[in-house]
């Protein structure tokens, strides 16, 4: 399939368009961070873009597990939490420890990776490199947790696996909130003052919005490569038919474990980025409701569709945190509407979700991917024969 795609002229043109679009995106992000004057539009756009990019990664990582390997896991919030903490603990500047760990005499870990690197490489380089190192570290810690949890729970099937992973996420949360670990995790209190997006710059070029895009794009690209590799096919085989997969020599445990660990690695990276975005983190926020939200986005985007997950992430975040806010304001285009009051936005939002779930039960993209080559082929077909084109791989 890929082979034929590479040969077709549409595919070449499609690739070109993709490259141009990505370049345009980064130029836009650069302008957004550095040149464009803040106005009410760009101000709202920036956080939505950042969070959308981060959620894209988180959702794709969940999709890898639920959509491509068919493992129904509800532990994502737990791995996000682990990633977020692993990242923040090691990036809090030394002189901030007393303030952050106010109840734990400054905490047990009193160094910061970006700061240490900054002393050698200069502050900006230290921040970027330190942040990237700690993000990778966050992923690794989450992956290690996943490996430990995976050994017992991956033997379970479908709903039992779901509830066991959900349970583990809750256990992780309780442990991180435990005062006994306070010197490291700060107990129930929030971690803050660590390196966040606003600290990321090269020279005078700010990368606050471009950075999460870059990291999450690289990670998603790796996931896509994985999905299209021999291992990705093995994952799909496990999803489609476990018995047949095993009979064809695909070790169920090994591949489930791989998928679980890799998905958790990227969830950990996502958690670290989320921590950077929020500028403060608290274990309390990583509840099972967060996992449901992610699952919801994955399904709205289409189970088994990477581009679906990304599109749905941006739409979901934008609707939830931006476009629908006017519904709470009590007026619409200056006209006062009595039932537009606090909470109405959320009612409308949940109705919207129900409508999507009921009428597009396979999600926005189904299990198809968005591809420019495919779009062009479809366009051509329409132009020449007027035949309704099917989905593209």
């Amino acid at each position, binding site marked *: 399939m890929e082979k034929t795609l590479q040969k077709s002229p549409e595919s070449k043109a499609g690739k070109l368009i993709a490259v141009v679009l990505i370049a345009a995106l980064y130029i836009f992000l650069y302008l957004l961070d550095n040149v464009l004057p803040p106005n009410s539009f760009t101000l709202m756009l920036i956080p939505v873009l950042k969070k959308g990019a981060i959620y894209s990664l988180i959702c794709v990582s969940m999709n890898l597990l639920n959509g491509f390997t068919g493992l129904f896991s509800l532990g994502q919030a737990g791995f996000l939490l682990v990633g977020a903490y692993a990242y923040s603990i090691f990036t809090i500047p030394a002189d901030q420890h007393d303030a952050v760990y106010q109840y734990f005499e400054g905490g047990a870990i009193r160094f910061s990776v970006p700061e240490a690197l900054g002393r050698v490489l200069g502050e900006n380089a230290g921040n970027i490199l330190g942040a990237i190192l700690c993000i990778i570290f966050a992923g690794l810690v989450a992956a290690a947790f996943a490996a430990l949890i995976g050994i017992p729970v991956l033997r379970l099937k479908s709903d039992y696996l779901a509830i066991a992973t959900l349970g583990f996420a809750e256990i992780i949360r309780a442990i991180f909130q435990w005062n006994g670990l306070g010197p490291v995790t700060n107990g129930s209190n929030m971690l803050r003052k660590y390196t966040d997006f606003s600290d990321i710059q090269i020279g005078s070029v700010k990368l606050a919005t471009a950075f999460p895009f870059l990291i999450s794009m690289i990670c998603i690209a790796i996931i896509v490569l994985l999905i299209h590799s*021999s*291992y990705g096919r093995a994952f*799909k085989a496990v*999803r489609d038919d476990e018995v047949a997969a095993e*009979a064809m*020599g695909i*070790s169920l445990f090994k591949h489930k474990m*791989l998928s679980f660990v890799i998905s958790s690695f990227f969830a950990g990276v996502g958690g670290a980025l989320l921590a950077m975005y929020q500028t403060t983190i608290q274990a309390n926020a990583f509840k099972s409701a967060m996992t449901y939200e992610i699952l919801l986005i994955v399904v709205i985007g289409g189970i088994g569709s990477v581009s679906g997950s990304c599109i749905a992430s941006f739409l979901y975040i934008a609707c939830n945190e931006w476009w629908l806010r006017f519904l709470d304001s009590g007026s619409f285009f200056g006209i006062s509407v009595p039932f537009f009051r606090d909470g109405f936005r959320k009612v409308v939002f949940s109705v919207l979700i129900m409508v999507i779930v009921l009428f597009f039960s396979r999600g926005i993209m189904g*299990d198809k991917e968005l591809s420019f080559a495919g779009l062009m082929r479809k366009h051509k077909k329409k132009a020449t024969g007027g035949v309704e084109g099917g989905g593209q791989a």
Partner: protein
Amino acid sequence: MSEKKPVLHVENITMQFGGVMAVNDLSLDVPEGQIIALIGPNGAGKTTAFNCITGVYEPTNGLVEFCGLPMVRNHPRGKMKKLYQGKDADKYAHDPAIAPTPDRITELGIARTFQNIRLWKSMTVFDNVLTAKHMRADQNVFSATFRTNAKEEKRMRAETEALLVEQNLLQYRDELAVSLPYGLQRRLEIARALATSPKLLLLDEPAAGMNPQETAELAAFIQQIRKEYDLTVFLIEHHMDLVMQISDYIYVIDFGSEIARGVPQEIQNDQRVIDAYLGVSEE
């Protein structure tokens, strides 16, 4: 049949589910290069025997050797110690039990097809075969993801392509496997099994649901692949025509126990076999 050493050697295999003996004290040999059939009426325990050999079930008692290597071995343990109704309970008690998973057994060189076709439904014909090559590929998750295994991947794709050509499936390469007609799905399942480079191929009712012409084609096909891939074939079937036509040796079981064994002509005239298939008259 003794001139060649058996590829598969099954000894006293017993599978007991609760109080039900699905397979009872079955022993058989599959010599290299031959086509051996296991036949019996519906519910005789044929597929269960297959599942014991391929590691889907852990047999309650007995031994399976592949090329002289003990592959599955068990003796009644735990709860089964009391419940066990079969023979030879102590025969393997002194050897450690081995119960590898199906993927390990496939890795050793046994591939199988399924009675009710189990193709990967979201994949194309090409991907179904390509994925079966995954196990034999020299790669790890990093080299595969970052494409440092490009050569290996290229080789796998080329081999898959070649296999599809040989199996006359090339014209369907980009179609969804489940959208093929039934007969082709069966053939694809065999092609997929071949992709794992087996020494021994287990076919579970390959002719089920086929008309006489398709069955005849299938018979030729099985003989052809045995030659081309230097295979040993062990098949389950109750399609007598096919079995009689291609088998070198036949085992017959009913209610889990062996009732006859022999070359096709012997089986054809065996009264017990005829009774088992037609039912013994009551008078």
